[in-house]
């Protein structure tokens, strides 16, 4: 049985790379590609459409996680049972997607990570959060992921809508509900353009660390009320 699968690509002003990413993804994966444009100012949406993707255009900017969640809600509405996500800037090789998808057979969420690309600062930061949360994940921010049906249902809920990043908050929500997370090493290319939005300057880093620490401490052993589907 081949469960139906959707590729979600969140994109904010990625006009330079989006067409190539969509085309390469379509070459290796035989499933629909959904690009969620996060209120882009350029022609990202038009280029993605030309390259053969379905495109959702957010009316206001919600951030990377807001865009991904839009894709997950679309997947939930339309009955997709697996969602694969990758970044629109070309740093994630679409060739890794089939491998990621195959691993969904025995995990609820598979995270594609590139351990050798992590800088020292990131290694220290992630080690700190691993201790704080008990999550056994090496690279918490990677946008190359595969979500199974249960994860889609959970992350489409309103409880996940106030998260700003796709990292610790999302992973804690998943593992808190007993979902199995797995990591898979993937060779990644350096970003073709643009840089990490979180690790761009020290002020951002500080804000991010404090924000995430508060989230971690507040959410320890939190379980969602059962029931309500998105």
């Amino acid at each position: 049985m081949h469960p139906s699968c959707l590729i979600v690509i969140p994109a904010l002003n990625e006009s330079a790379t989006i067409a190539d990413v969509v085309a390469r993804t379509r070459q290796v994966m035989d499933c629909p590609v959904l690009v969620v444009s996060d209120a882009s100012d350029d022609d990202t949406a038009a280029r993605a459409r030309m390259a053969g993707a379905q495109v959702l255009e957010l009316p206001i900017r919600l951030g990377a996680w807001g865009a991904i969640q839009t894709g997950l809600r679309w997947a939930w509405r339309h009955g997709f049972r697996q969602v694969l996500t990758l970044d629109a800037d070309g740093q994630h090789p679409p060739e890794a997607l089939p491998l990621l998808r195959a691993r969904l057979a025995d995990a609820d969420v598979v995270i594609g990570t590139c351990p050798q690309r992590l800088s020292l600062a990131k290694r220290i930061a992630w080690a700190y959060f691993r201790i704080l949360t008990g999550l056994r994940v090496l690279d918490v921010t990677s946008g190359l992921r595969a979500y199974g049906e249960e994860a889609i249902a959970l992350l489409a809920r309103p409880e996940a809508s106030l998260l700003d990043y796709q990292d610790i908050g999302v992973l804690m929500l998943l593992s808190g509900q007993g979902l199995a997370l797995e990591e898979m090493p993937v060779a990644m290319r350096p970003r073709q353009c643009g840089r990490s939005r979180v690790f761009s300057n020290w002020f951002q880093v500080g804000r991010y660390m404090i924000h995430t620490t508060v989230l971690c401490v507040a959410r320890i052993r939190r379980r969602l009320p059962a029931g309500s589907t998105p």
Partner: protein
Amino acid sequence: MTLPVLSLVVGFSLAGTILYLVRRDHLHGPYALGWLLLAAMVIVVAIVPASIDWVGRAVGIYYPPILLCLLAIAALLIKSLVSDLERSRQERKIRRLSQKLAIIERELADLRESQGLPPLRPDHEHDDT
């Protein structure tokens, strides 16, 4: 003008302003209640200034006038926490609504296409009001 008279004027104009704002639909029900309560307290203190001393002595405060400041600060803190809660709730709603809007626009476009209807004109750039 003596202090009690001034307090009375402040109390009554606050109450009047709140009622006017609710009447004009600028202020939402539950918020109005809190403000009216504050106006009532100002009026009470204006009519019976000694009430502060009574309450202060009752809760064991050495210098009763400071009670007013303490209460004011506490009320402001609570008020600001409540507005942050409200803002978070609204933020969640705005995010979910925008997501749903994007989804439904796409579904509508797909549906129109399958019906052979012409595509709709795009909105004005960044129509985010």
